[in-house]
């Protein structure tokens, strides 16, 4: 029974990684850049919800809505101001800019909110599920997280395959130049990608902080890195890959904490990543793409 409990907690943690990883993977797949500020957008979402729900005492749903709006706008603004001028520049320049944006967001949050941790009041009010006569208890937020993750994944796949703008995204990810020639507005497509990725980050922030209720300006950075690993693990650029990578990462992390050593769990997680990349350099579901260097 305890195994099941560890497994479910692992899937829940993994689902949060997966939602964050979806943001990484979409931006990478379409704009070919690693948006290291993604983790910090989660933190901004967390603070937006905290301000609305705990400081202003408004309903949680309004908090989540506000966070989604703020993060979407923030994502688009960051893209416009920091990344768009670098379109065509070397990927290293964009990467460094992304790291810069990440630090900028952390430090602005430090200035506004200070660095004392806040206890985050859960925005999910679902009763926990008791199975097997109470021996197995699954918290409400765990269920909501797993369901949300699946819904987002399916919704996103449908969006990309069925809508015009989704098709445009696919086209841009295959070949930006050709997409431009076919009349696709590349800048607009990339802006929409950032908007979606950032909205997902806001939702990830709500779930992350509800599950692990400690909010600081650095809240997003470690989950951000782990989610990046999850995205690479599953094959960066692939949406189902982000889900598989995230869930696997969460499960491996929790099970190694439970059965091997709580001290070594991170070491084990990253060792598995190395092994996977040695065997499959593009990740579990990654496509082999020949790239010009």
């Amino acid at each position, binding site marked *: 029974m*305890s195994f099941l*409990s*560890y497994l479910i*907690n692992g899937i829940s*943690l993994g689902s949060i990684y997966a939602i964050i990883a979806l943001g990484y993977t979409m931006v990478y797949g379409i704009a070919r850049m690693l948006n290291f500020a993604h983790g910090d957008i989660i933190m901004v979402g967390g603070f937006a919800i*905290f301000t609305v729900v*705990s400081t202003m005492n408004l309903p949680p749903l309004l908090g989540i809505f506000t966070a989604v709006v703020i993060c979407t706008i923030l994502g688009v603004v960051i893209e416009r101001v920091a990344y768009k001028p670098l379109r065509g520049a070397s990927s290293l320049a964009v990467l460094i800019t992304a790291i810069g944006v990440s630090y900028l967001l952390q430090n602005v949050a430090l200035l506004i909110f*200070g*660095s*004392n*941790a*806040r*206890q*985050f*009041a859960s925005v999910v009010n679902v009763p*926990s599920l008791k199975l097997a006569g109470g021996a197995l*208890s699954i*918290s409400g937020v765990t269920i909501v997280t797993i369901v949300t993750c699946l819904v987002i994944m399916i919704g996103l796949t449908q969006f990309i395959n069925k809508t015009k703008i989704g098709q445009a995204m696919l086209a841009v990810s295959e070949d930006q130049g050709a997409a431009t020639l076919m009349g696709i507005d590349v800048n607009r497509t990339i802006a929409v990608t950032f908007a979606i990725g950032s909205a997902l980050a806001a939702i990830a922030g709500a779930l992350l902080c509800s*599950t*692990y*209720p*400690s909010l*600081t300006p650095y*809240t997003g950075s*470690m989950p951000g890195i782990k989610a990046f690993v999850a995205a690479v693990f599953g094959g960066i650029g692939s949406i189902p890959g982000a889900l598989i990578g995230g869930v696997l990462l969460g499960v491996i992390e*929790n099970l190694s*904490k*439970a059965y091997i*050593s*709580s*001290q070594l*769990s*991170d070491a084990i997680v990253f060792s598995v990543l190395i092994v996977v990349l040695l065997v499959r350099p593009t990740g579990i579901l990654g496509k082999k793409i020949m790239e010009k260097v």
Partner: protein
Amino acid sequence: MKKVLGLTLAAVMTASLTACGGGKEASAVNNTPAAEAEKDSGAEGSTVKLGVIGPLTGPAATYGIAVQNGADLAVKEINAAGGVDGIMLDLKAEDDENDPEKTINAYNNLKDWGMQMLVGATTSKPCIAVSYETAADNMFQLTPSGSAVECVANDNVFRVCFADPDQGTASAKYIGENKLAEKVAIIYDSSTEYSSGVRESFVKEAPNEGIEIVADEAFTADTNTDFSVQLDKAKEAGAELVFLPIYYQEASVILKQAADKGFDPIFFGCDGMDGILTVENFDKSLAEGLMLLTPFSVTEESSKKFTEDYIAAYGTEPNQFAADAYDAVYAIAAAMKQGGITADMEISDMCEAMKTAMTEISIDGLTGAEMTWNAAGEPNKAPKAAKIVNGIYEMK
């Protein structure tokens, strides 16, 4: 380079202070503006400058701010009462954000200011880092709350709080003697010396007290948000008490997650737990029944006056760190008297005199009666524990 500059500045300052020093200070204990002005300009020669280092911002800010305030209150009281044999104390605090590297910067800034003795650093890792600097300069250092063993490894460093092993041993003894539990789980932070140190000595002492350790789980600074596995294992193993030799920040998350799981053992912490009631938006009912080893409680008779003055001055309730710092300044004052310290002494000579004097004094502080120190820098006082009842500490 900065060090040399700092030393030169300190030397120049000391020299100029001696030059304009005089015997005016004895008359200057009154608060009229004229007297103030006279004190400022005339009595500078007999001012000893104390530096304070601690996290004034950052996740551990509660500790650093408390230390700053506690020391500040003690300095104000001592100065209002005429100083230490007429020598005024001057205090300046620098922020280290609980980061050993920033501690060195803070130390250098304070030396530029003219610090002659150090009250700090507040937390263990920064304290260890700065102790090598003070040893190199042979500056007297008294840490209120640096509890890792290595903090006082250099013989110029003393401390007010207990050392980590003493806290671990004392916790195990307290749990054993009061028959709180037989099956104990530990959740500790393997990435801090403080937490690992307390845990180690607890594990060592436990068998002697009839305590069985049923789960011994760790986390690190990178994994300090999810404790579900550790709590599940403790619950699975049937722990009646969970020992948390960690800081209050993580403890607040553990209490929340344990409550969500319906896991309700006794939680027992050490001095790092102090501050848990100050976490913003924390549901205080979760901390109900939590026990912690603490040498100080606002509900104690002996700390009443201090608590009132502290609230009047800083608007919040003092915690153990404030009391440690308050005692530290009084210990320094007592040792200055004992050792015949004068403000114009070289930093190194002052340190030598203070080192001897510290082992000769005995003070009745907030954190213990008849506190004495040995030459290794360790205090000698009786441990005390408190339980949180109705949102306040109740001494046991």
